[in-house]
């Protein structure tokens, strides 16, 4: 059957065709802009967990980054321009991290990115970072994401292998011979746990009585902890996330365990001492730094300076936790590299980061020239919680 359109339908079709052509012309015009517009700010991207189980770390890191930006902007900015931060919440979810980085690069036109502290999310964005040559600095401690051979990724804290080896030594030093292990199913906890246990196995002085697992969404650990205590260990190793470490320690103590507890840098979070209270005593862990409880306990001039900046910006409040330190270091390292590069070109920033050396940070002295894989720091410390205070294990044992 011949289908003849009415004059009214023909008119509508013409109108739609004109609109489509207009859309195409606008799109082509936008694409053929001939490059980026000269901006009066330098845009830096950040993605991290502002919500979800890891929000404490994300919010505190953001706090440190914001302080560094305010400090640099007050001192004239970077390359004569003010620094502008574009940030997204990835809720600690890998897919959201990839979306955030895509948006930062494609839509927000950032010159460099400060990444999440979650190693799995960093490694997920690695290929995109390499392809677009937009450098990323991150504070995830897992060795995995710099083991991939990426050249535009840089770590702003020591790798956790430097800590797990020291932790294994500490486990032996305090006389533990029978170790029960609880390991979270996330990538970072699994990686660190494997490294620590490998180091212990190599020495052959400590026997693992049981290794059990937990999940991020667990709300009770009675089952796992009871089975661990039933093996009668003289040390318990918790390779778990910081958000629930306090609750696990509290429950472990309430089940009657009184011995040493070993863990990672997450044990430095002040929430752990708040939740577990005296139960947090005898917790031994590795960490780059530990935020002191009072201003008077700041150990370096830079730390005191950071506390001053923090109090000024956050109405007298002290840094939330050591993730705040990490954020400040990340931003400081990146901005110094951009300043040294004297350019916002990705390759120039990357080269400046790779050759950065002698920069005093809260984590110690950054020396990226001393590494070839994007690392910049050599070692971590071993701490112990004693009478509610965090101190070096070496001082405690002395």
């Amino acid at each position, binding site marked *: 059957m011949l289908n003849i359109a009415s004059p009214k339908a023909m008119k509508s079709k013409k109108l739609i065709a004109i609109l489509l052509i207009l859309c195409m012309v606008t799109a082509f015009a936008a694409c053929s802009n001939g490059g980026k517009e000269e901006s009066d700010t330098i845009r830096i991207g950040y993605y991290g967990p*502002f*919500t*979800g*189980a890891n*929000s*404490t770390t994300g*919010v505190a890191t953001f706090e440190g980054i914001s302080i560094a930006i305010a400090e640099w902007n007050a001192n004239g900015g970077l390359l004569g321009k003010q620094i502008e931060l574009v940030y997204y919440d990835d809720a600690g979810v890998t897919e959201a991290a990839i979306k955030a980085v895509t948006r930062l690069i494609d839509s927000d036109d950032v010159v460099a990115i400060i990444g999440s502290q979650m190693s799995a999310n960093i490694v997920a964005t690695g290929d995109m970072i390499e392809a677009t040559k937009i450098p990323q600095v991150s504070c995830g401690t897992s060795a995995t994401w710099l083991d991939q051979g990426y050249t535009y990724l840089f770590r702003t804290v020591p790798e956790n292998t430097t800590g797990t080896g020291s932790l294994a030594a500490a486990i032996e030093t305090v006389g533990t011979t029978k170790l029960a292990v609880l390991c979270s*199913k996330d990538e970072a906890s699994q990686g660190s746990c494997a490294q620590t246990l490998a180091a212990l196995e190599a020495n052959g002085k400590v026997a693992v009585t049981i290794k*059990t*697992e*937990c*999940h991020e*969404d*667990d*709300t*009770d*650990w*009675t*089952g*796992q902890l*009871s*089975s661990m*205590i*039933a093996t009668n260990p003289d040390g318990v190793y918790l390779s778990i996330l910081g*958000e*629930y470490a*306090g*609750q696990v320690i*509290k*429950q472990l*103590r*309430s*089940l*009657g365990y009184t011995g040493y507890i070993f863990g990672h840098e997450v044990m430095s979070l002040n*929430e752990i001492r*708040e*939740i577990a*209270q*005296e*139960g947090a005593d005898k917790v031994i862990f590795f960490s780059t730094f530990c935020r002191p409880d009072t201003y008077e306990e700041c150990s370096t001039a830079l730390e005191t300076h950071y506390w001053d900046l923090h109090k000024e910006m956050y109405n007298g409040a002290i840094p939330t936790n050591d993730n705040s330190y990490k954020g400040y270091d990340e931003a400081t390292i990146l901005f110094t590299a951009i300043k040294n590069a004297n350019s916002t070109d990705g390759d120039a920033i990357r080269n400046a980061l790779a050759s950065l050396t002698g920069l005093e940070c809260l984590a110690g002295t950054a020396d990226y020239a001393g590494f070839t894989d994007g690392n910049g720091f050599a070692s971590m410390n071993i701490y112990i919680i004693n009478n509610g205070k965090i101190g070096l294990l070496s001082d405690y044992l002395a």
Partner: protein
Amino acid sequence: MFLTCLVGGIVLGCTYGMLAMGYSLIYQASGYMNFTLPDLLMLGAFLGWTFFSKLGLPFAVSLLLALVLMFILGILIERGVIRILSNKKAKPILVVLATIGISIIIQNAANLVWGSLWKFFPPIFKDSTPIKVAGVSISRENILAIVLAFSMMLILQLFLTKSKFGTAMRAAAQNKLAASCMGINVNLTVSVTYGIAAMLACLGGNIIAPSLMVSTSLGTQLGTKSFAGAVIGGYGNLAGAIVGSLLIGIIETMVSAYISSVYKDLIIYGLMVLVIAVKPSGLFKANVYGD
């Protein structure tokens, strides 16, 4: 180890039980599934935390205030949303979707008011030494949780079976038209049911808050397993909700202790699917086929 796990499972089951009872109460009274309850649990925990930790009120007063506020909120949700949809003869799926919408609003509102950081719920007891019962160490908060949960279950049971209003609620749940003809204010009984369900969720939140921390994701963590408890017990049956939840809590703890925590969710949700497939009325023969 068995006794320790059993106690741990009962505490966990009690928390699930508060939500599961709420699910069942509302389903029994209105025939709708209500997905706001997990977030009402979260909101109740935040209110309890605000009164107890921020304002420094005694725990009992904080809990009471939170319960009253949540009761009012439950009634407001019923009157402001559910009843409007019900009066318009909206399909049940729309009511369910509306409760999901309210749930998201509550989560976002809590995020705006209290922020995304986890809140530490201070210890309720000054002495944190665990109490030894039959050789098992139990924390004081856990004992309080068990006592509060079982007391609430008992009070609710007495209220529903012995009080005039409770009898009216049950009558309205069984046959709204007949109850209305007998002079029972059906709208009021449904409103009160929503209020009680919100109160139960609040109690669950305040029971678990000292063991966990308070965050906007607190309800989500507990909501699905409570739902599984209600289904296994018999969706719409109060006693079933309690028993189903206790079963879930105990299975979860025992599987973690004797098999592996890796399998606990597989076993719990596998059991739920099995119950739905083989015995949809659950352990307590809830009426799931309608008239």
